[in-house]
């Protein structure tokens, strides 16, 4: 199936009278739709939740996002990306305080298109158990396959999913790492298709490296993944930083595109989740709580 046919099949349904459109909760969220550094007048022709959109910039560099029928969509610039929404967002884009911290290098990794549910892409990012098997000898290695106990929760005060005290042995935790170390992670999900990873920073042990996954939902089973990083690393070239992260996401892509079912199940009836999956379970509970169901399978089949 081509990307084009997938997009056409995923056009939003018309809601019956007196009924909220399906996926209204997700329609009203902000999503990444392009890199600020790549804005031009001709525009990037892409899609958001099945609707064709164009992301362009004027001569002054101001972004403009138009929907399928020419309507002007909300737009914001944050973390090197242009963000837009098909609806009326009631909240601002989530905060990443490290984005304002002096001394960090900000890395626009670019885009990786993945034929999977946007929610699946986030869930995969939250899963450390696959490291030794998918990112072998980089983010994990046998026999260090055990996931130690960690904490995963929905934080009511900020309405986000957090996983903390996640520790894992990694042969090469980052481009700047010179050997194997036990890396500590914290995961955060502040928006339905975005995750922020805080990771041990080898050159500066008192700080966290920040690696984000911003996912643009093109359709329920197709997405563009926009990784972005805020790192303390004065030595590695920008090209090497980008190539390292792209290599990781390309390894993930082959797994993601073969997952069955393609949508993310919100009923674990056909799966046997374990303690190692607690972050994924917290994420799915949070999606369910907010009716964030675009890209989700509601009933186990």
């Amino acid at each position: 199936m081509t990307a084009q046919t997938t997009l056409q099949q995923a056009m939003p349904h018309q809601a019956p009278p007196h009924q909220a459109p399906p996926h209204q909760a997700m329609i009203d969220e902000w999503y990444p739709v392009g890199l600020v550094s790549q804005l031009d007048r001709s525009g990037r022709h892409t899609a958001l939740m099945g609707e064709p959109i164009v992301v362009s910039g004027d001569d002054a560099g101001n972004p403009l996002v138009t929907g399928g029928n020419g309507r002007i969509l909300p737009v914001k610039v944050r973390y090197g990306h242009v963000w837009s929404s098909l609806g009326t967002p009631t909240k601002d884009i989530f905060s990443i305080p490290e984005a304002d911290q002096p001394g960090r290098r900000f890395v626009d990794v670019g885009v990786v298109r993945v034929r999977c549910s946007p929610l699946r892409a986030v869930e995969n990012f939250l899963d450390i158990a696959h490291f030794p098997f998918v990112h072998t000898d980089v983010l994990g290695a046998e026999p260090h396959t055990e996931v130690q106990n960690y904490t995963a929760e929905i934080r009511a005060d900020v309405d986000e999913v957090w996983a903390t005290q996640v520790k894992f042995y990694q042969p090469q935790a980052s481009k700047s790492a010179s050997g194997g170390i036990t890396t500590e992670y914290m995961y955060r999900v502040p928006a339905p298709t975005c995750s922020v990873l805080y990771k041990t920073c080898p050159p500066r042990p008192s700080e966290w490296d920040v690696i984000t996954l911003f996912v643009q939902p093109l359709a329920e089973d197709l997405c563009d993944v926009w990784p972005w990083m805020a790192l303390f690393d004065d030595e590695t070239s920008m090209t090497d930083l980008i190539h390292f992260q792209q290599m990781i996401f390309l390894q993930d892509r082959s797994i993601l595109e073969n997952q069955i079912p393609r949508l993310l199940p919100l009923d674990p009836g056909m799966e046997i989740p374990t303690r190692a999956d607690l972050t994924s379970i917290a994420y799915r509970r949070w999606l369910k709580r907010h009716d964030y169901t675009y890209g989700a399978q509601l009933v186990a089949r």
Partner: protein
Amino acid sequence: MTILGDLGAASFLPWIRRHADRLGLAQTVSHADDERIELELDGPEELIDMMEVGCLLGPIDVWVETIGREPLAVQTS
């Protein structure tokens, strides 16, 4: 295992039985109402852990707020 939440959906008890069967756990429901289900499980602790993790999410029409666990008295000869 005590499950608390918005559990009124008729789908939940059959879902619990199916999930326990899939894990090979013996199970008895000793109490069930719209807000609380008390479930006695017998089997390896790791599998009971998996039962707890699965129930935390549960079927789409159920909201599980918390799950508590305590060991039952073990009869010894």
